[in-house]
């Protein structure tokens, strides 16, 4: 009852080829839609962290993509970038927009995370994100009480690790932007 080995090989090869052909058509059909959604999500994120920007330009510097925002007079009002780092369970990705003229952060937007629902997931809440609105550049301390100084960030109750993760991602992103754009200027 042993089936010839050639028949086994032919069966699997035929199934593989048919699958590949079918999927390449599906891929061609869906890719434009998928790319459109990704571009839209990216644009929304940039607008959220550079609210006053009328025009956004993509710039490569030091191997990193930055999004420069310009106002209606053509003045550069800020820079945004994608930043990511380890969270409590998985990588946290966020978009950060800064005002390089005043050395201040405009805002951050969390793009993806897998933090604990109800606890760490509150990094996506306005209450936590407001910690970074109009914050000066620097090394931040995560504190478990109300933030008193400019360099303090108020942690989410029960989610200190998530809070610290976001803070260090923000710190690193600010450093990268400062090095690419030479601090103030």
């Amino acid at each position: 009852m042993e089936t010839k080995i050639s028949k086994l090989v032919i069966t699997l090869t035929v199934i593989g080829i048919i699958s590949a052909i079918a999927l390449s058509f599906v891929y061609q059909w869906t890719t434009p839609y998928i790319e459109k959604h990704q571009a839209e999500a990216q644009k929304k994120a940039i607008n959220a962290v550079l609210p006053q920007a009328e025009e956004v330009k993509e710039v490569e510097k030091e191997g990193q993509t930055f999004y420069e925002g310009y106002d209606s007079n053509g003045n550069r009002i800020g820079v945004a970038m994608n930043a990511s780092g380890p969270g409590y369970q998985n990588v946290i990705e966020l978009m950060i927009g800064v005002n390089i003229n005043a050395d201040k952060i405009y805002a951050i937007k969390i793009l993806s995370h897998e933090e604990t629902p109800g606890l760490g997931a509150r990094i996506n809440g306005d209450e936590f994100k407001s910690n970074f609105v109009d914050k000066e550049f620097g090394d931040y301390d995560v504190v478990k009480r109300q933030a008193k100084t400019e360099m303090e960030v108020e942690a989410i109750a029960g989610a200190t690790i998530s809070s610290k993760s976001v803070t260090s991602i923000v710190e690193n992103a600010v450093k990268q932007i400062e090095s690419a754009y030479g601090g103030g200027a």
Partner: protein
Amino acid sequence: MFKKILYDFKNGLWRENPIIVLVIGMCPTLAVTNTVQNGLAMGIATSFVLLSSEIVISLFKKFIPNNVRIPSFILIIATFVTFTDFFLKAFFPDIASSLSLFIPLIVVNCLILGRQEAFASKNPTRRAIADALGMGIGFTWVLVLLSAVRELLGMGSIFGLTILGSWYQPMVIMILPAGAFISLGVLVGFMNVLKRRGN
């Protein structure tokens, strides 16, 4: 003939319900039932893959040698799963991003491979269709029920709509993995009691 097909269809709904009775496909059952939207989307996606692969496999069962039936089934299932993944990403990006990894993982859902092995590879296509529809709907309704319980207790809402007012203190544990085990256990126990009553 019609009676037989109806029997196959009803089989998955209750008597051999994949989650409650066969207890297969536990990975998505436990992982994505934290909101009704996720549970429903996962149920529909899994049902689609189950139906399409049962049709294809029961149509071509004569051409698939016994020695390589499992790899052949997996190839066919993976094709439909990849299709589902692309389709959701293109037309339902919100659902795709909240289910993320669990869509590609449908490939290894033992409910799907199990039905090919136990049913589609041995029965005519019309019975395979009835079986897939029954099992798919059976899988989906339990996912929806489970996720409704978890979302209601864990977030005070159903389908994202707030049901329980601000007086309700959400039990966060219900939307965490531990809550999945607790509510699934209670649900299966409850269904067993109902079943025993029925007999």
